[in-house]
């Protein structure tokens, strides 16, 4: 019996409308589940020539063994495909209730290949799988679509994953939504679905998921819950999410702290403490299925309606674009959710245009007659709308920052640009718009550079950002601030053995912190639970995962096994990226960020990372991961040690690895 599994991988060929299944065990025996199985499926199924928005791309939806169980935060769905934003690995992770329902229907993963000849939605009810005509759903928002599908199927319990108009229009920043407020937002997974003519995936499952040792499993889950609830950070996370922490990040300048970001001359007096906004407009706290934390705020603003906000949504369409009106922020962020577009990406893209405008490079006629002035409501509203609808300059922006820069470079004389491309001002990694967290902190620069999808979130150095933000925390005594700094310092010194590991100006230890965070969050992505509960934030120990998996799967799952699985997953992902051209040179941040301090906030004038420092950090990180120092490609020894000899042979066949040689150091293996 496939304990903790739906048991099957559902394969749907959209071109031929053929549906088949294969046992999950084919992949899960070696890769355990979740993002790791997704990665191997994508490696196996997405050819080198598959265009991100072409029929040969493959999009995979994956759950983990703990998804849908009472283990804390086990709601997660991992979505993977070749990204239309980066051309490399596309990957986004989302909570809500869809992933669990998929397992209850008897499936662990869904693989969509080909392209439907007309818009469809995939409907799964246990063993019944059908593609239904989506003509009536055309143009519907991410909240209208689920309601319409539930009505069509006459079943209010159906769970729906869908795209909005942005996805239908293949805007590269399009998201995939799961119930209100949950978005698989990054790297354009919504555009990939749109390119396949798939509006939604609806699922109802009543088969259930078997457990090898139910009572020990339940006790292991409850032990994890009790561990979470006992954490110092839990009560606040439970009652106000990270509204206070997020605000502290911004006030410190560790978020929105670049030149283009909120900027030194921005008067933010209209922007309240995010926690105050929650207290004023809060309807109720909410969260994903199976999660006790409720990190999200369900807000209700008169005249603007209800929406769910959380975390880094707050500083994007406010601070990042120098918009000092929180109600405009709410309206625009809610619009992004309804239209199905990533508010991080669009905020950073808008910020770039506004910076170009402020530099005198962007005449209004280039942006459809609207001056892209900092914080201008018409500029924000208009460009968002035209990007989603692909009108005017919005059509160029919808194709990504690189395409938009090419468009502008062709129209702005080179001498006006100082012979430089407008792209140089774009805050992006491999064309992926960056989060607001500043790359001017060393470990952040490294995390952005080596992250699995060209961003930092998975390997975010949380202790570092807390240390830098500590002086800015609202409603905090100086003793508490000292305690926070001491606590976070102790964590990283214990991990690395480097006394200066917590110091933002010290290189030593940073690579290991980033490496270790990636390992830990990787385990939760494999298990199908939320990275928030790892040392990323609320500190579940890897043993909690091992204990629950052991009782649930009915075989001993050890900590080394989980760590190996996490490393193996990254090696598959990295090999996929190398096959699509990623090398060491791609692992970097925009050049304009080097050698500059944080521009504003309590950390103004401090820190900064040089290119030399980043290159040294990459050397160390590659060594820890067993990736070749010169190329950044996982070495043959690393791949073989990860049980990926076939991938090593594939890379050798393509000339990416030498036929047989020993290069680099084997690092962690």
């Amino acid at each position, binding site marked *: 019996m496939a304990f903790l599994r739906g048991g099957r991988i559902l394969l749907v060929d959209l071109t031929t409308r053929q549906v088949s299944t294969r046992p999950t065990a084919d992949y899960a025996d070696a890769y355990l589940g979740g993002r790791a199985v997704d990665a191997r499926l994508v490696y196996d199924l997405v050819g080198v020539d598959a265009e991100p928005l072409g029929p040969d791309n493959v999009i995979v939806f994956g759950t983990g063994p703990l998804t*849908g*169980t*009472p283990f804390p935060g086990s709601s997660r769905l991992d979505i993977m495909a070749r990204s239309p934003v980066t051309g490399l690995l596309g990957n986004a992770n989302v909570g809500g*209730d869809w992933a669990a329902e998929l397992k*209850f229907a008897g499936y662990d993963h869904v693989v969509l290949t080909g392209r439907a000849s007309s818009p469809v939605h995939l409907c799964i009810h246990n063993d019944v799988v059908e593609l239904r005509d989506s003509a009536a759903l055309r143009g519907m*928002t991410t*909240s*209208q679509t*689920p*309601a319409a599908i539930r009505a069509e199927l006459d079943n209010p319990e159906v769970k729906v994953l869908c795209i909005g108009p942005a996805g239908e229009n293949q805007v590269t920043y399009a998201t995939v939504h799961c*119930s*209100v407020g949950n978005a698989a937002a990054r790297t354009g997974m919504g555009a990939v679905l749109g390119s396949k003519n798939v509006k939604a995936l609806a699922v109802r499952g*009543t*088969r*259930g*998921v*078997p*457990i090898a040792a*139910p*009572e020990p*499993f*339940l006790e292991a*889950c*409850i032990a994890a*819950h009790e561990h979470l*609830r006992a954490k110092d950070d839990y*009560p606040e996370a*439970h*009652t*106000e999410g990270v509204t206070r922490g997020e605000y502290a990040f911004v006030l410190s300048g560790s978020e929105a702290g670049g030149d283009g970001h909120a900027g030194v001359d921005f008067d933010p007096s209209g922007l309240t403490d995010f926690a105050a906004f*929650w*207290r*004023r*407009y*809060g*309807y*109720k*706290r*909410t*969260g*994903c*299925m*199976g*999660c*006790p*934390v*409720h990190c999200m705020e*369900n807000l*209700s*603003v*008169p*005249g*603007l*309606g*209800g*929406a*769910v906000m959380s975390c880094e949504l707050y500083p994007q369409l406010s601070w990042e674009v120098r918009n000092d009106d929180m109600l405009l922020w709410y309206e625009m962020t*809610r*619009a992004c959710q*309804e239209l199905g577009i990533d508010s991080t990406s669009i905020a950073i893209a808008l910020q770039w245009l506004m910076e170009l405008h402020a530099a005198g490079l962007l005449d209004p006629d280039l942006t459809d007659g609207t001056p892209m002035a900092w914080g201008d409501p018409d500029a924000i509203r208009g460009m968002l709308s035209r990007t989603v609808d692909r009108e005017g300059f919005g059509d160029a922006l919808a194709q990504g920052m690189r395409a938009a820069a090419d468009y502008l470079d062709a129209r702005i004389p080179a001498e006006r640009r100082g012979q430089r491309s407008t792209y140089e001002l774009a805050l992006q990694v491999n064309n992926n718009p960056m989060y607001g967290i500043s790359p001017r902190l060393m470990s952040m620069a490294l995390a952005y550079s080596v992250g699995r999808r060209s961003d930092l979130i998975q390997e975010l150095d949380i202790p570092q950002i807390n240390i830098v933000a500590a002086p800015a925390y609202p409603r905090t005594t100086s003793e508490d601030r000292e305690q926070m700094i001491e606590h976070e310092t102790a964590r990283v010194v214990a991990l690395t053995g480097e006394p200066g590991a917590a110091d933002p100006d010290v290189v030593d230890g940073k690579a290991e912190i980033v490496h270790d965070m990636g390992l830990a969050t990787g385990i939760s992505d494999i298990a199908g639970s939320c990275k928030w509960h790892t040392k990323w934030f609320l500190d579940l120990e890897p043993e909690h995962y091992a204990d629950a998996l052991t009782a649930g799967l009915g075989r001993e799952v050890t900590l080394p096994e989980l760590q190996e699985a996490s490393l193996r997953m990254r090696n598959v992902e990295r090999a996929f990226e190398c096959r699509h051209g990623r090398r060491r040179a791609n692992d970097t941040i925009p050049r304009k960020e080097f050698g500059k301090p944080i521009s504003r906030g309590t950390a103004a004038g401090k820190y900064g990372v040089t290119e030399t420092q980043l290159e040294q950090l990459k050397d160390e990180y590659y060594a820890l991961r067993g990736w070749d120092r010169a190329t950044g490609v996982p070495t043959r020894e690393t791949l073989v040690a990860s049980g990926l000899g076939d991938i090593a042979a594939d890379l050798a066949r393509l000339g990416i690895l030498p036929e047989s040689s020993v290069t680099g150091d084997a690092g962690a293996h």
Partner: protein
Amino acid sequence: MPAYSVIAVDPQKCTGCRICELACSVHNYGEVNPVRARIFVVRDETGGLISTIPVVCRQCEDALCERLCPARALERDTTTGAVVVVEERCLGCRTCVVVCPFGAPAVDPQVGVAQKCDLCGGEPTCVRVCPNQALVLVPAEEESIRRRRSEIERYVAALREEPAPSAGPPVATARPHGTAGAQGKD
């Protein structure tokens, strides 16, 4: 009458995480399967406002399911006060499903007999796992008293414009606004 306890439900404290459903099905059936759980969280997201209400057997004093069951398959557990199913007598006729005002019982799709909350023999698993105290086990005669107190605490908190005092419920002092504009630009 013996002093029984019941599961008191406070929908305002429920955030819809459904851990109760998941743990209930693991405890009672050894599998994760919300359709077999004996507690069910009803969810509504109209207008972007999330409302969730846990539905579980009220263990009625005069239980229609018990009174109307043609097979006399429902009876009162004299220790816990729960109305329990005697599975060997149950016909799976769904009379209990039809007569229950709350939709609490169900005929299990796999075993074909009625299933309902039996208070886990006096220590309900759902109460144990609820992270918000939206489900608490209280003496039956105290339920209304506690309910009045919790309502008045919210009222007092609102008057003082402070967050609600209890530890669990992430319920803000702001009241839900009219939902007339809730659909916004849609």
